[in-house]
Structure formats: structure tokens, C-alpha cells
């Protein structure tokens, strides 16, 4: 009797243990299962391409070698970059382009628009912001074509014929004369809308009591912006700065369409594109282009780390309130 009872209990215990093992395995698997689609996307579209670029950058692969006759060249492409006469000017161009577009438009103008349109009646503010989104919605080619009409060579162009001509300013080939002005303007008009949207929502979500308190405490509108609004939207400010730095570093299509890198407006990503995919002589230097791209990725990573460190992002993020799985 007691023997059969203990056997029954042993059986029971075994069953429970198997059940426990099953559940622990399941509890391990289910988060992975949920994340699987995201993991697959990240690996296939983000991670593997970076690896491929790094691998190709160690070869002399080009249209001339094709996919069969290429060979490993180790870090030759990188030492070529280090000694290339274009490297320094292009790097300088890139930094200037990023710094000016970012500060004047993607953050500066975005902040000005957000502040202005949140201090006027809601409906007008909304309308103005909607208008400012138009360049972003316009296909780049159409958008740049319009700018080319504006800045067309003498004696044509809206600037020459209609805006500055009547003022007695002699017609000029505007693009060659002021290439950076137009490169930054064309990029900035589009770029500002991103920060504009983010800053606007951040400003509008500041509790009304802060806004009232600031005025009652004696702030002028300007002082309220300086001492209350800006500190309270610090996180979106830093986020837009970081994000837009990285996206400007790798952006080139506006410059490609506007100047093709002429008149000294070649930036790093455009250089990589032209070497790897759009060579004048028809020899696409995939290996060299990949090395250029890899350097850009490195610059981006370093910048991101510097920003994260300098802005202390982790201190601005709250612990999640949702319990872990």
C-alpha cells in the first residue's frame, strides 16, 4: 500500500519536473519568438550589409575586376584614403556642410518655427507648419529642379530676372558663385521640418501650469523661452541634434542633383557614391567606395558616442515602468 503510494508520488514528481522544464524552455523561447521578426530585419538589412561593406573594402573589387578576378588587398584602400589629395578638402566640406545645415536649419530654424507657431493662434500655426512640410513631401528631383530655376545661370533664373534684376543687381551664375549657400538652403528647408514637428509636440506637451507660472513669476516671452521652455525640451533638442547629425553625414542626393559635387561642394558620402556607383569613366570602384563608406560609418559611430556621452542621454531616460517578461 505504502509502496504503491510512494511510486505514485514519484511518478507525480517526475511529471511535474517535466512540466517545469517545458515551461522554463517556453518562457525562454517566447520572448525570442516575439522579437524574431525584428531580429531578422535588423540582421538582414542592417547588420549583414555593414559586414559586406567592410569585407568589400578589403578588396580591389571594381567593374574592371568583376566578381571573379578581384583579390584581397588588406588595408590598401584605407591607406589610399589617408594619402588621397581629396581627403582633406572633402572632409572639411563635409564638416562644414553638416555643422552649418544642422545649426542654421535642422535645429536652429526648426526651433524658431516651432516656437513661433506655438505662440500664435493654433490654426495659423498648424497651417504654417503644414506648408513647411511641403518640400519634404515633394520628390527631390522636382524640388531641386525648382531651385535650379530659381538660381539658373545669367541671364535666366527667377533670381536674376525677377527678384534681384529689378533691384539693379547684375545677373550672375548663382550656383557657381554661391554653391554652399544653395546647398545648405536646399537641404535646410527640408531638414528643418523634422525638428519642427518634434519640437512643436514637445513644446505643446509642456504642462500649462509651467507656462503660466513662468509669466506670473515675471518672465517676458523671451525669458520664458530661455529659462523654461528650452530646458524642458532638452531631450528632444539633443535627440534631433544627434539624429540629424548622423543623417546629414550620410545625405548627398540634394547635392548630387544640385551641383553633382562641382564648385567645391563634394562631401564624403557623395564621394563614396561617385567612386562606387557613378564613376565618370565607367569603372565602379566598389572596393574603394566601400572603404570610403566604412570610414563614414566610423565617423558616425564616434560622433554618436560623443553625443551620448556629452549629453548624458542615459540620465534623461526613465526606467521603464513595464515589468520585464
Amino acid at each position, binding site marked *: 500500500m505504502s509502496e504503491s503510494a510512494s511510486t505514485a508520488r514519484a511518478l507525480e514528481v517526475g511529471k511535474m519536473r517535466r512540466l517545469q522544464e517545458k515551461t522554463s524552455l517556453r518562457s525562454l523561447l517566447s520572448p525570442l519568438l516575439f522579437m524574431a521578426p525584428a531580429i531578422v530585419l535588423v540582421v538582414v538589412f542592417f547588420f549583414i550589409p555593414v559586414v559586406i561593406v567592410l569585407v568589400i573594402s578589403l578588396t580591389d573589387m571594381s567593374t574592371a575586376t568583376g566578381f571573379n578576378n578581384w583579390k584581397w588587398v588588406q588595408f590598401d584602400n584605407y591607406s589610399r584614403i589617408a594619402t588621397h589629395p581629396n581627403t582633406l578638402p572633402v572632409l572639411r566640406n563635409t564638416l562644414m556642410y553638416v555643422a552649418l545645415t544642422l545649426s542654421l536649419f535642422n535645429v536652429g530654424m526648426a526651433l524658431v518655427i516651432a516656437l513661433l507657431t506655438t505662440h500664435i493662434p493654433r490654426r495659423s500655426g498648424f497651417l504654417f507648419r503644414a506648408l513647411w512640410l511641403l518640400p519634404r513631401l515633394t520628390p527631390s528631383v522636382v524640388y531641386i529642379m525648382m531651385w535650379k530655376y530659381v538660381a539658373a545661370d545669367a541671364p535666366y533664373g527667377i533670381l536674376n530676372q525677377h527678384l534681384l534684376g529689378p533691384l539693379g543687381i547684375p545677373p550672375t551664375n548663382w550656383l557657381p558663385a554661391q554653391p554652399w549657400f544653395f546647398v545648405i538652403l536646399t537641404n535646410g528647408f527640408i531638414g528643418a521640418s523634422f525638428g519642427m514637428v518634434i519640437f512643436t509636440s514637445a513644446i505643446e506637451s509642456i*504642462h500649462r*501650469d*509651467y507656462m*503660466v*507660472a513662468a*509669466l*506670473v*513669476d*515675471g*518672465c*517676458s516671452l523671451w*525669458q520664458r523661452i530661455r*529659462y*523654461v521652455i528650452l*530646458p*524642458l525640451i*532638452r531631450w528632444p533638442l539633443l535627440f534631433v541634434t544627434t539624429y540629424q547629425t548622423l543623417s546629414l553625414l550620410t545625405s548627398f542626393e540634394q547635392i548630387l542633383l544640385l551641383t553633382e559635387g562641382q564648385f567645391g561642394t563634394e562631401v564624403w558620402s557623395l564621394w563614396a557614391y561617385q567612386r562606387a556607383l557613378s564613376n565618370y569613366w565607367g569603372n565602379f570602384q566598389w572596393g574603394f567606395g566601400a572603404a570610403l563608406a566604412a570610414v563614414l560609418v566610423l565617423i558616425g559611430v564616434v560622433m554618436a558616442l560623443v553625443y551620448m556621452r556629452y549629453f548624458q542621454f542615459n540620465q534623461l531616460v526613465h526606467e521603464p515602468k513595464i515589468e520585464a517578461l
Partner: protein
Amino acid sequence: MKVKLENLTKRWGHVYAAHDINLEINDGEFVAFLGPSGCGKTTTLLLIAGIYKPTAGRILFDERVMNQVPPKNRNIGMVFQSYALYPHMTVYENLVFPMKLKRTPPAVMKERARRVAEMLGIGQLLDRRPGQLSGGQQQRVALGRALTKQPDLLLFDEPLSNLDARLRLSMRAEIKRLQMDLGITAIYVTHDQVEAMTMADRVAVMKDGRLQAYCPPDELYDRPRTLFIAGFVGNPPMNFLEVEVVQRDGVYHALRAGFDLPLSAERGKQAAGRGSVILGVRPEDVMIAEEGITGEVYVVEPLGRDDLIDVRIGDVHVHALADPNRRCRVGDRVHLRFNTQKIQLFDPKTEQSLLWT
């Protein structure tokens, strides 16, 4: 400083947030704006602060018209329900922020902040950030920030609503005492009638943007001028019964099915012959007695000091406060006696009192 509102009106589209408000606040007086949410009390406060511009009417500080004066030139201290302490500043920086904007000399700033912090018992918190403080401490700092600038007028926007019940009680007394000592004219917005009654010298009751009454708390309680005030002020709330008042053998009676209450002549004659009127009586003026109007105990709610007894008389319920020692039980038949000196009578159409104007 005296504050005067003349025909003050604020309209948003077709909605009147404040409608033709007239009231005067004396120097050093503590006035509460009382009303349910959406009644326009906060809008009126923000009009006084200068955040909103009036659609019509005038705001006067002493004899000066303030309509076009920006908030920063009104020398107002304000305390909010959400505290609204700047999270990126320390307690000290919060306290001196208004003075910093006025370019007060640093020595003066420091001294005033120290004095206020000491007065409010937050001296040891000066280096902390608002996020590191409890709700009660934050509210003290907010109060301090309003006081350091030495305002002519203090505005409170439901400052105690986010605090727990016990803390609310002690802060209530503290704010009242502080205001008395400093003698600063104060306006206190609240939806809590207990706060309004206990703290204010005069209470302005608002409903739908209109001023319903403006009088001392006891008058509000004893002589409510509208049905709304009678129902809103007092806890537990007043009982309302639809009755008809008739004169029989020289005595006025309030009648309804199963209910016959003799009224005093001075009150009864105001309602007699008007058809159906609304009779109001507070639970503390209804007593369980040996004889009187008969009813059945429906619910007993022990409140500690008293039992709140819900008595059903025919098809209406009347709340009465009873001695817990009476041990009323659900289903008991009881008799109710009414304090006829405290009976209120209202016109059901205009909702105005028939006794007080």
C-alpha cells in the same frame, strides 16, 4: 491691495467662461472662488493674473485698471495644483527665480529665500531638485516661490488637491495662518467647499461662468440664495423635497404624500399659494425623535461621531444625522423631527430662494 472686478467677461467662441462678474476684494482679505469643475473659477483667476485678456469688463488693482498690464508687471504670486516647480532648477533656484528676473541684488535674494525657507520649514531642502521631494514638500516650495517676490496678491489654483487628506488638513491651516500674518490679499480657487468655508473670509460661488453668491461662509451656509448653493455647500449635502405650502387654521404646513411639516409663519408665508416649491433641510437639522413624521430606515452610514441615516418617507429619501448610541437598524420605523428655524424654501423654476435675496 484691493482687487475689483467690473462686469468681467471672457468668451471663447460661443462659450462664456466668465460672464459679467462683479466683485470687490478688500486689502488683506482671503477670498475663495468655489464651484464645480468648468464653472469658470480658474479662468477668472487667470484673467486676474493677466494670462488671459478679458473680452469685456475691467480688472482693477486698487484704483489702477490692469486689463492691458502683462503678468510680469502685476506683482502676483501664484501656487498651482501641479506645483509647477521648474524641474531643472534646485529648490533654491526655484525660490529665487522671480527675484532673479527682477534683477534683485544677490544678497537680498539670498536673505529673502532663507527667511521664506525657514518660515516654511524647507531650509534643509535648498539643494535638492523638485523631483526628489514629496508632494507636501513640493507644495511648500511652490508656496515659497510665490512668497519670496513679496507679492501684492496671492493666487491659489487648487493648491491642495494633489495632497493626501491628512496633509491637506494641516496645509489648509498653515496657509490660512500665513496669509493672516503676512496680510497679503489672497484668492483661492477650489472645488472643495470645506476648503472654501474653512479658509476664506468671503466665498464667491460660481456656476457656468456666473457669480452665484459672494458672501461670508456662514451666510452661505445659513442663507443660501440659490438651490445650487444650498446643494453644493455643506457635507453631507442638504435634503431637497418637493412640497406644497398651505395655510390651515393659521398655521403653515409643508405637505406631500406621507409628509406634513408645520412651518414657522415668517417662512411659510413666503411659499404659501405658490403651488409646488422645493423645501431644503440639512441632515443635522433632522433628528430621530419619539414622534413626528414617520419613515423607515433605508441605509445607515456610520461616520464616527454621528450616524448618517437614510430614511424613506413614501417615495423620497431624507438624510438625518443621529447619535450612534441610538443604534438605528435598517428596516426600523422611526420618527423624524425637523428644526423648522433652519428650513430653506426655493422656487423650482428660477431655483432662487424664497427666503433670501
